[in-house]
């Protein structure tokens, strides 16, 4: 059942963040040594509204069978509109691979559900044994697939992470984070990012990550500090104003109104915290990512991200989902406009991995779970 929940969490992220094309490589038509190469997103919302709508229609008309074709079309458009130094990315997955993968995944899930229905004790086995074993396997497969089908300058990306480390990062560290009441959660995020970056490659050039755990703790600590300061400020001003808080806290008449106000405030606070932490960590992580000797720079502004999330969310709700493509394009445009790569000697010198090294084993299954896993 984990694949579903993995999908759910990623899908419900802030308005389905557009997957930005995988890390990257260097490009420069005429090789200019030691230069700053900018990313950009060239697609327009108007174009994507058309692609998205027609995808939706054809998928509905074919009762979902078209959806792998729709997915590939949308991904091709996103990759082909993402530029580094004016050169686009490529997306090469075949829809039939994805369809096959989904059918296999569906069969596996159905078999599991039926088994649990017949033998309820099997659910325990599933949760304790199968899930921890299967999740890392799926993660590795999906990452391999996703990297391998992406290209830049006609050179493929790759992923070489091991199952063992995936188990550590996605199961052990997650469990530890829960057991320590979240204290180790930033560390788990750090390890996950390191795992994703360090095992990714562009052709034969590996990505490197030189961030530290403390860089991931910083944003969390600042948010916590701000929350405590805010609470102290509120309490202080209530006391200073000489208001007796006791009736406010106990009066049954205002109970429901207070519940609404406090829940809204809590949701707003969590949203602010989420946006701040994710923006800062995104900046930190990219700023500590290298491709060979070349360094990335990411400079997302908290205020801009907040505005994008809020306005996108309102537009999507007000349009019953029809503004989703517009929202995705806006987000992609802003994020990519803040990302750049400073190279030591241009983008021309990366070398491909021999074609024979690319095995096809399990690609289909990887495709099944290729639903926005991190990075």
């Amino acid at each position: 059942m984990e694949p579903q929940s993995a999908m759910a969490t990623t899908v419900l992220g802030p308005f389905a963040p557009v997957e930005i094309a995988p890390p990257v490589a260097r490009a420069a038509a005429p090789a200019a040594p030691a230069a700053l190469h900018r990313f950009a997103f060239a697609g327009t919302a108007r174009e994507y509204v058309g692609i998205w709508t027609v995808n939706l229609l054809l998928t509905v008309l074919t009762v979902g069978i078209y959806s792998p074709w729709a997915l590939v079309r949308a991904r091709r458009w996103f990759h082909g509109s993402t530029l580094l130094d004016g050169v686009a990315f490529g997306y090469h997955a075949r829809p039939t691979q994805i369809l096959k993968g989904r059918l296999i995944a569906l069969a596996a899930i159905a078999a599991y559900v039926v088994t649990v229905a017949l033998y309820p004790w099997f659910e325990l086995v599933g949760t304790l044994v199968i899930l921890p074993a299967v999740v890392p396997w799926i993660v590795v497969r999906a990452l391999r697939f996703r990297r391998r089908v992406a290209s830049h300058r006609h050179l493929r990306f790759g992923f070489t992470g091991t199952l063992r480390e995936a188990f550590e990062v996605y199961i052990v560290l997650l469990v530890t984070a829960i057991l320590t009441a979240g204290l180790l959660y930033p560390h788990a995020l750090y390890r996950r990012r390191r795992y994703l970056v360090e095992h990714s490659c562009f052709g034969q050039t590996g990505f490197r990550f030189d961030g530290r755990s403390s860089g991931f703790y910083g944003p969390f600590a600042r948010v916590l500090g701000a929350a405590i300061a805010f609470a102290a400020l509120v309490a202080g001003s209530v006391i200073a104003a000489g208001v007796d808080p006791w009736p406010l806290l106990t009066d049954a008449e205002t109970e429901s109104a207070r519940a609404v106000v406090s829940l809204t405030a809590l949701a707003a606070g969590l949203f602010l915290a989420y946006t701040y932490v994710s923006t800062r960590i995104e900046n930190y992580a990219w700023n500590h990512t290298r491709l060979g000797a070349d360094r990335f720079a990411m400079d997302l502004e908290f205020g801009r991200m907040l505005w994008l999330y809020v306005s996108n969310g309102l537009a999507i709700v007000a349009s019953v989902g029809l503004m989703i493509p517009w929202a995705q394009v806006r987000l992609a445009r802003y994020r990519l406009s803040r990302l750049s790569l400073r190279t030591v000697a241009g983008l021309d010198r990366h070398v491909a991995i021999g074609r024979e090294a690319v095995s096809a084993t399990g690609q289909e299954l990887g495709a099944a779970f290729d639903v926005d896993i991190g990075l």
Partner: protein
Amino acid sequence: VSGLRALYFDGRTSAAGAVEIRLEAGAIVVQGAGVERRWPLAAITIAPRIGSAARTIEFPDGAACEVRDHDALDRLLPAPSPAGRLHRAVHLLESRLKFVAAALALTVLVGWASIEYGVPWLAREIAQALPREVDAALGEGTLEGMDQLFFTRSQVARGLRPRLRARFAELARAAGLDVQPRLEFRASPDFGANAFALPSGIVVVTDELVASAASEEELLAVLAHELGHIHHRHALRGVLQNAVTPFLLAAVTGDVSVLVGAMPTILIDMKYSRLFELEADDFAVALLDRQGIARHHLADILARISSAEEGDEGLGHYLSSHPATGERIARINRP
């Protein structure tokens, strides 16, 4: 004739070279920046046009060209293959505003039709393929659970119960159900005047309902309605519909699955229970006619219960999924 400008990659390194592409006697010629290559058209793969995104022309040896000028490339090439024509058709749909608007309207229409007709039809077909035992398994333990949560011991007069049970059994026989229904009495301040049909064939009436009935015929009319729920297997169909709807939505939206979260499935759910009530009413009316019980009894008790509920802000009010009573009464009294 000047060629089409493109970037050339050899597939072995990331070096990019500016080239021009020409068509010469059924072959594609790539020339520039130290490159001079020629391939028969049949040997190359051209990515479909999607918006203004860059597309690649792939050559058999692993090299490729990146092209931006899509109109020029389309002009350069001869008529595309069948698959290529399909991609061109999709691109045409995507890039014209009026087609996009039409696609949107059609999507909404198809979505509405599948919720209105498709899902109930599918649930009915599946229910018919499943044996009655499934219903029974579904209702197992339900009464015990409700006893703990909502019900208390019934205060209905001991003498009244056997008589009602006998008339209920007679009604059930006349209904020709393939299960043996059972009548249970419970008191429930939470639900007020109400009756429930559990999928296992148990019908529960509340003391409040018995109290608000003006005659035994009115109670029988309500029981006939509940038998309608059992006959049409509404509990099972409800479960199936609830299971099918998100599955369909997920299958259909795929890439845009955020829609699933935004979709007010609870509204769809309420709509379906409305349909079930009307179906059960129709069944009850036909059964009452056969048994020589005037159908106005059903209308009467419905009207009384709903006027008693008016202004009631209790639990019963929130749980009420029945369609507008006026509409149902008019339907029942229609000859």
